[in-house]
């Protein structure tokens, strides 16, 4: 309703203001008046099927559902009058007749909406003496446990699929008492947001599978934190027992994650307790890594770092590392005389300067209002699920979302138009759009075809729009060129330009970098080589855009690694390995891609002897005799960071330099890289349940059917992929989403460490 007039209603004798078109329950909720409910949820459409929210309304002959009764001026309602109470109790009795009384063994016990409401509205003894309904439960994948006998048919989970996740997988089949909620044909649900139905389910029908039988709700303490796997920075509640993280659930923040959480942010805590979690410092002795005491390891680390030629000393840090960690790392390095530090391991091109502080270019809430969005090299749905949710809202509201991608990634809304082309053709595709807008095409011969003209027109006609470069674009060897073209398009069309970045703190890292002396970039280090390198939460073989080169670089250097997990690569290459606290175990601050600085405390005790990275860095600073390294607490560090960052703001302005020429040439066969959503960082790669979902990488090389036919290969054939000096043998998969003459072999996944850049010429043959 557009007219913002207010009306007055009276509930339980209290006068309340409301807007026409609101449902009664919205008004009572805002006023803090409790009306029991099961099917109503503020983010879902109204179903009015549970009949729990029945209230008495003046002049209505029967009780009305508060969730589906629009307010009217002067309306009078009573939420706990005898009529209302009697109706609510009646519903409660009906809900309980077929609900199992297995609360003692139910995971929802203690936090069950049904249990809570039953306390207030249930009767004592059941008058229902027949056998209760038993419903077979389906296996819907590794994330969600189902116990459908407990289902009360509120359909929240079904509506969530249709309205929020955008894939309708759950449904209500059958009718009447036989109606069953489920997927009908058993399969694992494949939504990157599926875990939210666990929160939505008011009873114990849908619960977290990894959390199953792990703890009871009342044994848990709740801590607030920030999720650290993508640029959204979702707010979370962390449930802890005996200093261990048992579960992660979303915390409402309308400006960030609303009420939702991506599966990656919800389930990756599992990795904290995985087998290769590092519990003790290690040092290379007699060729192998051996456990040592902290003291010894720290002294040795300081010696290595101090002893290195400052010009040939560098640090590589995760783009998810906290502001505090990055600041201390930079100070440590500077104290040792080096400015060679970078977090942009996944970036594929450094030939021209980056924008001052790359960010989304808009606030999340603004994204919903875009009338046109052009995604470039982005599987936004999987990369940044909750940012994608905002884009989806824009699309559902009529916004035109377009994509120029090297793979026909699927989205949970319909794209207005798309160009799916070989990675080497992406720049050309963008140049076409630029040309249609009369913008500079960076020297590319550009004639816009009708589709590019349409894309240009959509952007031009939008009152508000966005050109967004995704993580695939960022890892592209011609990223600088793509970025320049995208900027030209955005400028000519009068829309915003945005970057999604990697990790949870890429914007924060850039903010810090903006105030620091420049040293070597990742690319510079790869070219010049290092004598000593400090790694902060990095798995070089998977985090780097160029694993082979990274291997070569670090193979020659002394490596001091501050990490949470031990990998085979570290076993082979690192000299000193220092176990650090993982993200839920430490305090810090992250800057999300809309520029919010969000701080959090540690929620659980670090595993084994692991210590927070900021403390380790502080000790290293002390041991290296660097001035001013006596921080008492992480807040001291943050205070200093905030001083450094005064006046630093997200800023996508790029220096007006000439764009570099395209260097990714067309070839007989091109590799398409990009990192799948469950391989983006050290923790996610070790989150067991996520690794068993349909979204986990299938360990095969994907080509399209025509190419497979042309090569005489079939789905499942064992094939050898060769790139630069590396090769890899895997089964072949046939997938229509892959453009011709391309093979999809992601980065960040097992096997990728043997190869070169995510994009480039490769060859393929039968093994």
């Amino acid at each position, binding site marked *: 309703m557009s007219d913002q007039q207010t009306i007055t209603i009276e509930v339980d004798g209290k006068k309340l203001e409301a807007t026409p078109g609101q449902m009664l329950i919205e008004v009572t909720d805002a006023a803090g008046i409790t009306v029991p409910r099961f099917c109503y949820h503020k983010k879902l459409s109204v179903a009015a099927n549970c009949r729990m929210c029945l209230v008495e309304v003046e002049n209505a002959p029967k009780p009305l559902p508060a969730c589906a009764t629009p307010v009217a001026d002067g309306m009078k309602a009573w939420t706990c009058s005898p009529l209302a109470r009697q109706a609510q109790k009646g519903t409660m009795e009906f809900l309980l007749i077929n609900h199992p009384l297995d609360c003692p063994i139910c995971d929802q016990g203690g936090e069950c909406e049904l249990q809570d409401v039953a306390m207030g509205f249930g009767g004592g003894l059941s008058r229902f003496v027949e056998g209760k309904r038993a419903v077979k439960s389906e296996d819907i994948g590794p994330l969600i446990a189902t116990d459908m006998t407990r289902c009360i048919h509120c359909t929240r989970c079904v509506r969530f699929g249709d309205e929020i996740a955008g*894939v*309708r*997988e759950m449904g209500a089949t059958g*009718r009447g008492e036989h109606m069953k909620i489920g997927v009908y044909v058993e399969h694992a649900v494949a939504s990157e947001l599926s875990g939210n139905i666990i929160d939505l389910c008011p009873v114990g029908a849908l619960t977290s599978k990894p959390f199953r039988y792990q703890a009871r709700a009342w044994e848990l303490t709740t801590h607030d934190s920030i999720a650290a796997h993508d640029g959204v920075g979702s707010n979370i509640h962390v449930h802890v027992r005996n200093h261990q993280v048992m579960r992660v659930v979303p915390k409402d923040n309308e400006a960030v994650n609303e009420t939702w959480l991506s599966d990656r942010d919800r389930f990756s805590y599992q990795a904290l307790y995985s087998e290769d979690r590092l519990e003790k410092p290690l040092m290379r002795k007699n060729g192998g890594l051996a456990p040592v005491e902290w003291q010894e390891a720290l002294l040795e680390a300081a010696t290595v770092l101090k002893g290195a030629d400052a010009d040939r000393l560098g640090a590589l840090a995760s783009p998810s590392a906290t502001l505090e960690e990055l600041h201390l790392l930079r100070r440590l390095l500077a104290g040792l005389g080096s400015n060679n530090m970078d977090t942009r391991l996944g970036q594929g091109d450094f030939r021209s300067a980056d924008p001052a502080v790359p960010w989304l270019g808009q606030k999340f809430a603004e994204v919903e209002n875009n009338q046109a969005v052009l995604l470039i090299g982005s599987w936004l749905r999987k990369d940044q699920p909750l940012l994608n949710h905002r884009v989806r809202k824009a699309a559902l509201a009529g916004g035109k979302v377009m994509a120029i991608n090297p793979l026909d990634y*699927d*989205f949970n*809304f*319909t794209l207005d138009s798309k160009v799916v082309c070989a990675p080497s053709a992406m720049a050309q595709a963008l140049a076409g759009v630029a040309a249609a807008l009369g913008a500079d095409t960076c020297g590319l011969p550009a004639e816009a075809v009708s589709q590019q003209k349409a894309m240009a027109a959509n952007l031009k006609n939008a009152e508000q729009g966005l050109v967004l470069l995704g993580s695939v674009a960022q890892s592209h060897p011609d990223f600088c060129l793509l970025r320049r073209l995208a900027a030209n398009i955005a400028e000519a069309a009068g829309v915003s330009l945005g970057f999604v970045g990697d990790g949870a703190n890429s914007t924060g890292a850039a903010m810090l970098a903006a105030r620091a002396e420049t040293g070597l970039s990742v690319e510079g280090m790869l070219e010049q080589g290092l004598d000593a390198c400090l790694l902060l939460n990095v798995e070089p073989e998977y985090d780097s855009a160029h694993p082979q080169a990274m291997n070569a670089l670090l193979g020659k250097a002394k490596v001091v690694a501050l990490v949470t997990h031990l990998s085979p690569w570290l076993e082979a290459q690192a000299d000193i390995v220092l176990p650090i606290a993982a993200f839920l175990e430490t305090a810090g601050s992250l800057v999300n891609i809309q520029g919010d600085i969000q701080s959090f405390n540690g929620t659980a005790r670090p595993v084994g002897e692991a210590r927070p990275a900021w403390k380790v860095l502080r000790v290293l600073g002390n041991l290296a005799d660097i001035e001013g390294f006596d921080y008492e607490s992480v807040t001291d560090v943050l205070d200093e960071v905030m001083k450094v960052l005064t006046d630093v703001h997200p800023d996508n302005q790029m220096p007006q330099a000439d764009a570099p020429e395209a260097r990714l040439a067309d070839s007989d066969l091109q590799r398409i890289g990009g990192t799948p959503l469950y391989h983006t960082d050290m923790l996610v790669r070790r989150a067991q349940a996520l690794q068993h979902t349909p979204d986990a990488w299938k360990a095969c090389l994907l080509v399209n059917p025509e190419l497979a036919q042309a090569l005489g290969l079939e789905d499942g054939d064992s094939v050898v992929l060769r790139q630069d000096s590396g090769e890899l043998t895997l089964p072949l998969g046939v997938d229509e989403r892959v453009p011709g003459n391309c093979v999809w072999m992601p980065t960040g996944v097992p096997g990728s460490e043997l190869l070169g850049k995510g994009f480039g010429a490769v060859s393929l043959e039968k093994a």
Partner: protein
Amino acid sequence: MSLRCEPWARTDKREDKENLFSPEIRAEIDQWVAKYPDEWKQSAVMAALRIVQDDNGGYLTEELMDRVADYLDMPRIAVYEVATFYSMYELSEVGQHKICVCTNVSCMICGSENIVEHLEKRLGIKLGETTEDGKFTLKEVECLGACGGAPMFQIGKQYYENLTPELVDSILDSLEQDNGE
């Protein structure tokens, strides 16, 4: 978003629809699709399910339901929901002739129990079962809107009213003689 009236969303629309059904079946489904607004192809789902069910000897399979979903660009679960909600869709194999006997009030008052008993005896099966030779399935149904001719049953598209055991026998006799095609 409190009020919604949109077709079920499916973003992975299937392009090659030719291979899903025979041209005749596609033509028949398309006739139904044409009755509804363009964006509401899914309105034809009930007809499409009926058409493929008839073509498949009277029952639906998961594969057929999936094809209908693909053909009409609907999420599969939405098709399962429809197929399991309406009683005229069969989800497991049925006999060549499905005898749908009404046992609701009017028919009950007029002796449908005798008819059921007679059918069960003659066919050697209970309600809900299929004869071993796959010829007949016996199904209890709710009021078919022909209570003036109670007791009654429906076989195929045909209603048979004012049934007596003798009449039932002669109907079954003639069906038994007709050997399908």
